[in-house]
Every structure is written in structure tokens, then in C-alpha cells.
């Protein structure tokens, strides 16, 4: 019998272009306190803690060790860290709860993109011998993908602009979002992508609490049960991938049970408008599904927390009774190389 595990609390920062006045720890502490307060738990009550971040944003090795101080890590805690988006930290915590070694888990992800040039920084995650020395940046790579979609007749520039305006209009209702309301589509950054097709650069953090079985019901009126969660990676080289498709997303969704019944909500980690086109196809999302009601990554993209926020936003809609079955997606790597899909459900009403 598999253990039932749910998201029982979610919190995030107000995502902003810069946060010079705050260290990473100072940025994190309010969201950590927020999720703990929502559940009434103290750090010492938590069975397992896991975080996601990357040293490269902070520009120094072991940056996550300082952030851990924000959890108040004494007495010693059972804790781990993935050098990935916080969504994968949630996956690690989910497996830990499945073993029965813990009943609750605190998961957080954070990133400050403001101190450097995130476009340049992300080039460092490319193949270091053949690709990285050419410094192709994240917008240029996304533009290749967008052009491939346009060439294949799957979208066009007005449709992409539509994705941008719909996302930012939705974000009007999200007080945490960085870009909200009517945002100009702007000039080309790298053809065919315009400013409006790209995510804002910003700093932010998010935290989630997971709980198993009855513990989840005690901590949350309407827990968001994780019915399935899976993630898959593809080849790194763009030359061996069909950039108009995302087989890893499709496979992860299949394994997570996403296609067994329709979802009413989908929170997609698509930093570029064109990537929503790819993901909608892979996830077979029709127009009846509410896609990125939070505004998605086009409204706020705190790198390393954006994927975790998708799970949190999907769960929060279930907590509030605005969704019964939601899909959340996170991505990592250039042009959607690695993808995670989670299916969340509330108890029947």
C-alpha cells in the first residue's frame, strides 16, 4: 500500500527585480515562517528538510550552507539539498516520506538572479567542452526553439504575444508576481522572441510543507494529494532533439497519471511563450484547462524556485477549493531538457 502524501502549505516571496537589501537567508526566513505558521509546525517537528538552489546564481561555492541557517538548524536536522529547482527537492522529500522514515517534510527553493547576468550565467550549464565556450545564452537557445515551432507551423508571433498578454493579465490577481497586467510585447531580444516573450529577471523564494496520510488531514483542511509525480531527462545536445516536442514531459505526465482523467488546472514552468506551446501539446491540454492562472514564469521567474512555485500554486488552488485536479510542471536545462510533472487532487466535495 503506497502512502498518501499531500502538499499542505505553500508560501512565496513577492518576486522582485532586485533584493539588494536582503541576503538569501533574509529572503527565505519569511516564507519558511509562513508555511510553518500555516500548519502550526515548528522546525523541530519537521521530519525531513530538502532545498533546491544553485551556487552559480550566488557566485560562490556552498551558498546553500548559509541559507540553511534560515531554517534554524539546531538541534541537528535530517536534511538534504539538490542543485536543481526546488521542484526536484520536493520530489526527493516525497520519496523520503514514501519510505515511512518521516511524516512531514519542509521543502524550499530560492534564487537571486539580480547580482549577475542570468543570461550569461545559464550558458555555464552547457556542455563545457564544445558548447559553453561559444556562450550561446538562454534567450538565444529559446529563440531557436521558437523559430523551429514557427517553421513547423505550430505557432506564430501573434499567438506568442497572446500567450504573453494572457499570462500577465492572469497575474493581475497574483500579488506576488513581478510583471502584471498590460505589458508591452516590446522589441526583439533575439528573433523571433520579443521582450514580452521572455520572463522577467528577478529574485525570490518559495516553501512547501508535505505531509503523509492522516497527518496531512490534521494540518490542512483540504490537502492537495500528490496522485503521481515523475520526471525525465532528455539528451543535452539541441542537435539531437526535436525542439518542437517534449517527449520527456509526455513520459513524465504518463507516469504521473496525468492522462488518466482530465485536469482542470495546469501550472506550467514555461519561461518563454513558445515553451507553453510545446508543453500544451505534450500534456494534451485543451482550451478548457485553466493554464497558469498565477501568471506563470512569464510573470515571475525566480530561477530555482519557479518550478516549486508551480506545484505550490496548483496545490493552493486545491486548498482554496478552486481546483479538484491540477497538473504542475517544472523544467530544467536549455530548451526544456528535463521535465517534472505532478498531479494533485483534492478530496471529493
Amino acid at each position, binding site marked *: 500500500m*503506497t502512502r498518501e502524501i499531500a502538499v499542505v502549505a505553500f508560501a512565496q516571496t513577492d518576486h522582485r527585480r532586485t533584493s539588494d537589501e536582503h541576503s538569501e537567508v533574509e529572503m527565505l526566513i519569511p516564507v519558511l515562517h509562513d508555511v510553518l505558521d500555516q500548519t502550526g509546525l515548528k522546525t523541530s517537528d519537521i521530519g525531513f528538510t530538502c532545498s533546491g538552489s544553485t551556487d552559480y546564481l550566488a557566485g560562490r561555492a*556552498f551558498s546553500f550552507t548559509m541559507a540553511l541557517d534560515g531554517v534554524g538548524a539546531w538541534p541537528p536536522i535530517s536534511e*538534504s539539498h539538490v542543485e536543481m529547482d526546488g521542484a526536484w527537492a520536493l520530489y526527493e522529500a516525497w*520519496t523520503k516520506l514514501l519510505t515511512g522514515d518521516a511524516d512531514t517534510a519542509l521543502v524550499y527553493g530560492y534564487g537571486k538572479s539580480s547580482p549577475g547576468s542570468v543570461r550569461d550565467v545559464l550558458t555555464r550549464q552547457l556542455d563545457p567542452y564544445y558548447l559553453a565556450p561559444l556562450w550561446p545564452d538562454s534567450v538565444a537557445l529559446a529563440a531557436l526553439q521558437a523559430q523551429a515551432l514557427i517553421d513547423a507551423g505550430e505557432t506564430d508571433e501573434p499567438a506568442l504575444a497572446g500567450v504573453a498578454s494572457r499570462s500577465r493579465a492572469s497575474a493581475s490577481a497574483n500579488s506576488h508576481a513581478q510583471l502584471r497586467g498590460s505589458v508591452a510585447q516590446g522589441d526583439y531580444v533575439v528573433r523571433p522572441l520579443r521582450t514580452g516573450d521572455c520572463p522577467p529577471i528577478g529574485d525570490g523564494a518559495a516553501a512547501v510543507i508535505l505531509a503523509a496520510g492522516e497527518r496531512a488531514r490534521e494540518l490542512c483542511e483540504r490537502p492537495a494529494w500528490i496522485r503521481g509525480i515523475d520526471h*525525465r531527462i532528455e539528451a*543535452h545536445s539541441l542537435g539531437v532533439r526535436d525542439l518542437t516536442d517534449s*517527449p520527456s514531459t509526455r513520459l513524465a505526465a504518463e507516469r504521473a497519471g496525468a492522462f488518466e482523467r482530465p485536469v482542470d488546472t495546469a501550472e506550467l514552468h514555461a519561461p518563454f511563450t513558445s515553451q507553453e506551446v510545446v508543453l500544451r501539446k505534450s500534456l494534451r491540454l485543451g482550451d478548457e484547462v485553466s493554464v497558469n492562472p498565477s501568471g506563470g514564469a512569464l510573470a515571475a521567474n525566480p530561477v530555482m524556485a519557479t518550478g516549486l512555485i508551480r506545484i505550490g500554486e496548483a496545490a493552493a488552488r486545491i486548498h482554496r477549493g478552486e481546483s479538484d485536479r491540477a497538473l504542475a510542471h517544472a523544467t530544467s536545462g536549455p530548451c526544456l531538457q528535463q521535465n517534472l510533472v505532478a498531479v494533485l487532487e483534492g478530496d471529493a466535495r
Partner: protein
Amino acid sequence: MSKEPVAVVGIGQTKHVAARRDVSMAGLVREAAQRALADAELTWADIDAVVIGKAPDFFEGVMMPELYLADALGAVGKPMLRVHTAGSVGGSTALVATNLIAGRVHGTVLTLAYEKQSESNAMWGLSLPIPFTQPLLAGAGGFFAPHVRAYMRRTGAPDTVGSLVAYKDRRNALKNPYAHLHEHDITLEKVQASPMLWDPIRYSETCPSSDGACAMVLTDRAGAARSPRPPAWLHGGAMRSEPTLFAGKDFVSPQAGKDCAADVYRQAGIADPRRDIDAVEMYVPFSWYEPMWLENLGFAEEGEGWKLTESGVTELDGDLPVNMSGGVLSTNPIGASGMIRFAEAALQVRGQAGDHQVDGARRVLGHAYGGGSQFFSMWLVGAAPPAS
């Protein structure tokens, strides 16, 4: 609810050296992974997921290298997780992989950790200035030397103990074909005559800087039944963390290490580690950490660890062998160092450790730590399946 038992059925590592200029990072990790698969007599198709770990990305200058390494590790189309918990990462990576099996998410998982230190400069990677924060520009030795001093003062240990550990570990390394340092002419006098780097730590009492990778194939009960060679069974595993710096911290014997060991012993049903555990492969980057960890892990009373070392108990033919492989003092591809400890523990209980095999090793502890004695990960493996 009960967990699925976890078994180690394949172990592979590279010959650790100062610089593997003949391979890329992808080539290095693939070599270790293929050896682990060969040991398990499995193919890439038998692997359900890959869990990879290494120390800071700045050590090689590649951000999130798992993205680029996915192809080399046969991970395309599979789940791939990347763990990073500082120096303990090799151990933590293995434990994350065990959870995938124990929680019945997957049947067979490849786990691997590596460091290719020659691609960059680890000292630089650790010394990037942090605004408004005291930098540790003295390197790792400068950070740990005062804690060794504190241990000596607290216990009254004679200043010869550190060199005994180094002499033992370097001799053990001569029996391990994968070890980095093979100092055939090593003598105790040579260790004691080596230059003082960070008093009381001498040059020969420090770890080298290595390129290397270590991989293991972990599987469930059904997978273990098909294993061509004896599996090593997981009896307990745990991680603990505490802050690097805070007023109440005991740098000589951190609470996180004690708690981590206690959790592992509870899971494994170990009442008296000194009696119930046959050998220990522990993370000793500076020689004095052997007596310090002997106490922290409960093998000796406080203040008594150095007596075990001095009396030869921790020698390869002693009553409680420590660092049979030659340890971190002989081989240190940082990100892989923790996993090498875990893998050595598994090799020992499988009876596959070759010239550094401990006769009758049935239960062996693998230990890793990282940060400023901040992160701990440990596992205890046995020749027999766990009781429950």
C-alpha cells in the same frame, strides 16, 4: 509500513589520479558507471533512474553538470536527480538513491559521484569572496587545524597520533589498486618529517587532490536475488545537518555526527558499535579526524579515541580496521569521496575488497561529512539481509 530492502549489487570506480587528461568529465563518469554495471552483470537498459552527486559546481566551472552528463550516464528518457550536500555529498547521493528503492519508486538505480579537480582549482572555488562575510581564505586545513588542536588539548593525546593514522592509511592504499597515492617508500619517519602546513597538520597528514568517480548499482529484493555476486544489504542510513558556525557548536565532536550515527545504529539494531561493527570506512581528510570520529561515532568514549589508534586497533589487521581502502588521505576526488567510503563498506561485506579485505567483515559502517563539520551522511551495510 515496511520499506523495501535495498541491496548493493554493483560497484565501480576509476583509478584515482591527480589529472585524468585522457578523458572528459563524461568519459570519467561513464568509466565508473560501466564498471558498476559490469560488476552487477546488468546493462544500461536495466537501470530505472540515475542519482548523481558532486561537490560545488565551481570546482570544474560547470553549472548543473548533470544536464550535460545525462547522455554519458544512459539517463536519457529516465529520471535523473542531482544531489549537492558539500563534502558529504557522495554519501547523501547514495542515500537519496536508496530511498527511491526503499520507497518502491524504482527497482534498480544507478548512483554515481565524481570530481574532476584537474579541470579547475578547488582552492579558488572555495575562496570566492563573499560580501560582508568572513572568508575562509586559509583553505580547508586552516579551518580544521584549530579543531584538531582543541581535540589534543581536551584529550591529552600525544602529538604522534596524527602521523600514525597517515602512515597506516598510506600503507593501506598500497593494497588498493584504485587509490590515488601509492607511496611505496612510505615510512613513519617520512610522515613525521614532512613540512608543517597548518600546525599540527603536516603535509603527509593531508588528502591529495584527485580526479575520480565512483558508482554503485542499487536494487530491491528481487534484483538482489538475481545478483551474480553477493549483495551488500542496507541496514541503516541517515543524514544530519547543523549550522557551520554558532555559539554552542562543538567542533571537536559535532552533535549532528552523533545524532546521525545514533539514527543509523537504531535502524540497524546496533547496541554497541565497538562490538557489533566489524570495520569502519570514515571520512578522514586530515589524519587527526580518525581519533576524533572514533569518539563522535561511538567507537570510543570521549577522550579515548586516540588510544584505539595508538594501540593499533584501527590497523588493517586490528580489531576495528579503519579506512581499509587508504581513505580520503590517499584518494580525494571531493564529490566522490563520500561515495567511495560507502562503496568500500559494501565491498568489504561482499568479500570483494581484494588485498585490503578484512576477514569476516559482516557489518561495516561508511561515513561522510562536509562543510565545516556541518553535514553528515552514513550507512551501515551487512552481508546478510536486514532482519525485518
